[in-house]
C-alpha cells in the first residue's frame, strides 16, 4: 500500500493560504464583475445587473478584441525571445570579458534596470520625438533624411519603438540571471571538452546550454508573462501621439475599456481572459520545469 506523505503538503500550506487570502477577494470581485453589467453608475453605488456570460460573448465576438489579443501574443513572444537572446549574448560577454570591462557593463546594466519606468520613458520619448528628437537628427546627419518623421504614426514602426524600449528595460535582468547560471558551469568540463577537440560553438550548444537550461526556461517564462501585461510603455507612447485602436495591447485596451470608458464589466471579462491566456501560455513551461526537477 502506498503511504500518503503529509510533510510536503504541510510545507505547501502556508504559501497556498497566503496566495488564496491575497487573491480570493480581487479574483472573486473580478470574476463576479465580469458577469454583470457594471458601469460608472455602479461604480458610484447603484446595484449591478447580472448578465451571465454576456460580457464574455461580447469579448469573443468582437473582431477588434481578437486583433488586440493577436498583437499582444505576438508582441510578448517577439519581445521575450529578443530579450533572452540579447541577454544571453551580454551574459556570455560578461563571462569572457576582463574584470574592468565586466564591471563597466554591470554598472551600465544596473543603471538601466534601476531607472524608474516613467523617467526612462520620458527620455525615450524625447529621443524619438518627431520634431526635435535626437534619433531623427542623427539619421538626418548620417544622410537619411528623417526630418519630421513620426515614428509612432505607423503601427509597425510604433511596435518597433516599443520593442526597443521594452527590450532595453528587461535585458539587464535576463543578462544577470544567465550570467549567474554561467558561473555555475564547471570550467573543468569545458576544458576537458576543449582537449577532446570540441569547437567553441559545440561547447556552447552541447555543454553550456544544457547546464543553464533551467535558468533560461525561468527567465523566458517570466519575460513572456511580463511582456504580455506590458502597460506603462505602451500607454505613454500612445499618449505621445499614436492611433489608439491599432496600437492597443491587452493592458491598455482593458484600461481604456474599464477606467477610461467606464465599462468595468467588459474590462473584468477581458482580465479573466488574460489570466487564462497567461496560464495557457505558461503551462508548457511550468510542466517542463517540473520534469527537470524530477
Amino acid at each position, binding site marked *: 500500500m502506498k503511504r500518503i506523505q503529509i510533510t510536503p503538503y504541510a510545507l505547501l500550506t502556508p504559501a497556498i493560504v497566503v496566495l488564496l487570502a491575497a487573491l480570493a477577494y480581487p479574483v472573486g470581485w473580478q470574476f463576479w464583475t465580469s458577469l454583470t453589467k457594471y458601469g460608472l453608475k455602479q461604480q*458610484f453605488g447603484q446595484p449591478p445587473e447580472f448578465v451571465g456570460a454576456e460580457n464574455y460573448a461580447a469579448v469573443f465576438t468582437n473582431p477588434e478584441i481578437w486583433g488586440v489579443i493577436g498583437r499582444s501574443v505576438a508582441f510578448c513572444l517577439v519581445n521575450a525571445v529578443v530579450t533572452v537572446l540579447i541577454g544571453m549574448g551580454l551574459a556570455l560577454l560578461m563571462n569572457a570579458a576582463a574584470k574592468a570591462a565586466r564591471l563597466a557593463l554591470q554598472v551600465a546594466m544596473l543603471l538601466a534596470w534601476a531607472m524608474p519606468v516613467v523617467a526612462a520613458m520620458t527620455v525615450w520619448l524625447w529621443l524619438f520625438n518627431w520634431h526635435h528628437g535626437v534619433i531623427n537628427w542623427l539619421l538626418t546627419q548620417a544622410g537619411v533624411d528623417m526630418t519630421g518623421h513620426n515614428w509612432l504614426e505607423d503601427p509597425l514602426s510604433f511596435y518597433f519603438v516599443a520593442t526597443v524600449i521594452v527590450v532595453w528595460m528587461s535585458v539587464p535582468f535576463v543578462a544577470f540571471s544567465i550570467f549567474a547560471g554561467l558561473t555555475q558551469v564547471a570550467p573543468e568540463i569545458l576544458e576537458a571538452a576543449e582537449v577532446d577537440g570540441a569547437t567553441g560553438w559545440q561547447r556552447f550548444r552541447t555543454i553550456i546550454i544544457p547546464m543553464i537550461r533551467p535558468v533560461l526556461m525561468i527567465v523566458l517564462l517570466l519575460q513572456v508573462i511580463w511582456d*504580455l501585461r506590458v502597460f506603462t510603455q505602451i500607454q505613454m507612447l500612445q499618449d505621445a501621439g499614436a492611433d489608439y485602436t491599432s496600437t492597443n495591447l491587452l493592458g491598455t485596451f482593458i484600461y*481604456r475599456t474599464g*477606467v*477610461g470608458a467606464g465599462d468595468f464589466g467588459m474590462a473584468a471579462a477581458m482580465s479573466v481572459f*488574460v489570466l487564462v491566456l*497567461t496560464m495557457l501560455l505558461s503551462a508548457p513551461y511550468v510542466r517542463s520545469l517540473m520534469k527537470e526537477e524530477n
Partner: protein
Amino acid sequence: MKRTIAMAALLAVGALTLSACGGPAATTPAADPSAAEPAGQNITLWLAGGDTPDALREYLKTEYNKATGGTLTIEEQSWGDLVAKLTTSLPDAANTPDVVEVGNTQSPTFTNVGAFADISDMYAELGGDKLLQSFVEVGKVDGKNYTLPYYFGSRYMFYRKDVWKAAGVEVPTTLDEFNKAVVTIAEKNPNNIKDFSGFFIGGQDWRNGISWVFANGGDLAKYENGQWTSTLSDPNTIKGLQQLQDIQKAASNAPSTAKDESPWLYINDSDAVTNDDGTVTETSFNAATIMAPGWAHWSIGDLVKNDEGTEVRQWNSDKFGVFVLPGNDGKPAPVFAGGSNIGISAASQKQEGARELLKIIFSAEYQQLLGQNGLGPANSDYTSALGDDEFAKALTESASNSKLTPAAPGWATVEGSMKLEEFFSKVSDGGDIAALAAEYDAIITPMLNGS
C-alpha cells in the same frame, strides 16, 4: 505530487498576472452629516493641470486656514488622467478628494451618477445668476446644482506678423478668408523652411479642429426624444470637417497623430543651431499660425534672460500677434469653450470644510485674482479684472460665441475612450469623411447615453 506542485506554480503565475488587472474598489459613498463643524477640518482640493498659478494656490491655503484653522492640501492631477482618477477615487469615502475641479465637458458624466454633493442651497450665496450660465447648466441635474463654474478660457489664433506680411496676406475677417490665407502662406513659405505649416494643427487635435464644425453649423451630438445621437454625419458637420481636411492637406504639416500639446514650440523662432558651414538651421520655427488657449502667450515670444539669469519668453508685438478665428457670419467662429467646473465630492466626510473652501473660491477677491492671471472669472461681475490688453480682448471676444461639448451623461466616456482623437486623425489623413463619420457615429452614440 507532481500535479500539486504544478498547480501551486500555476496559482503563483495567476497571482503575478492578476496584479496587473486589479479592478477598482467598490465602496458605497457615505457622507457623514455628523461632521458638521468646519473647524479644523483638513481637506484636499484636486486641481486639474497647471492652469491655476502658484500664487492663487497659496492664497487658497492661507485663507482656508484663516477661516477654519484646518489645512488645505492641493493636489494637481493631469488632464489626461483626470477621468480615470475621478472614476476610481470619487466613490471611495476613505480616499476621495473633498473639492474637485473637473473639465466642464466631463461634469455631466459625474453629476449624473451622483458623484457630487448637492450645493443648490449655496448657489445664490456663491454668485447665483451672475455665474457663467452655460457652465452652471453642465453642473445641473433635475434642477439641482452639483458643480459650478471655476474659470473659463477660450482659444484664439497666434500668428507670426512677419511671415504673414512676407506672404502678402492680411488678417482675415471671415473663416473662408482664413482658410485661404493659411494655404497661401504654406505655399509661399517666405522663409523657405522645410515642412512649413501656414497653420499648424495636429491630426488628433479635435478640441481646436471642432471650431470648423461649429462655424459651419455642425455639432458633435444632439438630444432628441430622450436620446443622444452622435451627429458626425450631419451635412453641416461634414462641411466643417471637409474644410479642416483641406487645411490639413494644404496648410498644415503637423503629424496626423499630434494632439493639442504645446503648439507654441513651432511658432517661436529660437532654438536655432549653427551648422559647421556657418549656416543656421531653425529647428523650432516651422508654423506661421497656431490655435491655443489664451494663457499660451506666456510661452510665446523672443528668448531673453530675466533678472535671475533664466531664459524666459518675452512677447514681441512686432513679430507676434493674436486674432480671433472669424466666422462667416460676422461673429467670431464658435470655438470650444475651455475651462472647468468645481464641486464637492458626495462621498467626502468633510462637507462643511469643503463648503467653506467654495465660499473662498467664489469670493470677490479670488475671482479678481483669477482674472488678473488671465483665467476668466466664473462671476461676470469680475470679468473686468482680465484687463484690456490684446490677450484679454481676444479672450473675451472669442469666448462671447464659444460653445460647450454635448451635455450628454456619457460625454466623459467618449473623451476617455479617445475615439474622437482617432476620428479626427483619420480625417486629417485624407480618409473618406462620410464613411468615417458613419463608422464613428455608430461607436459614439451608445457611449453618449451612458449605457
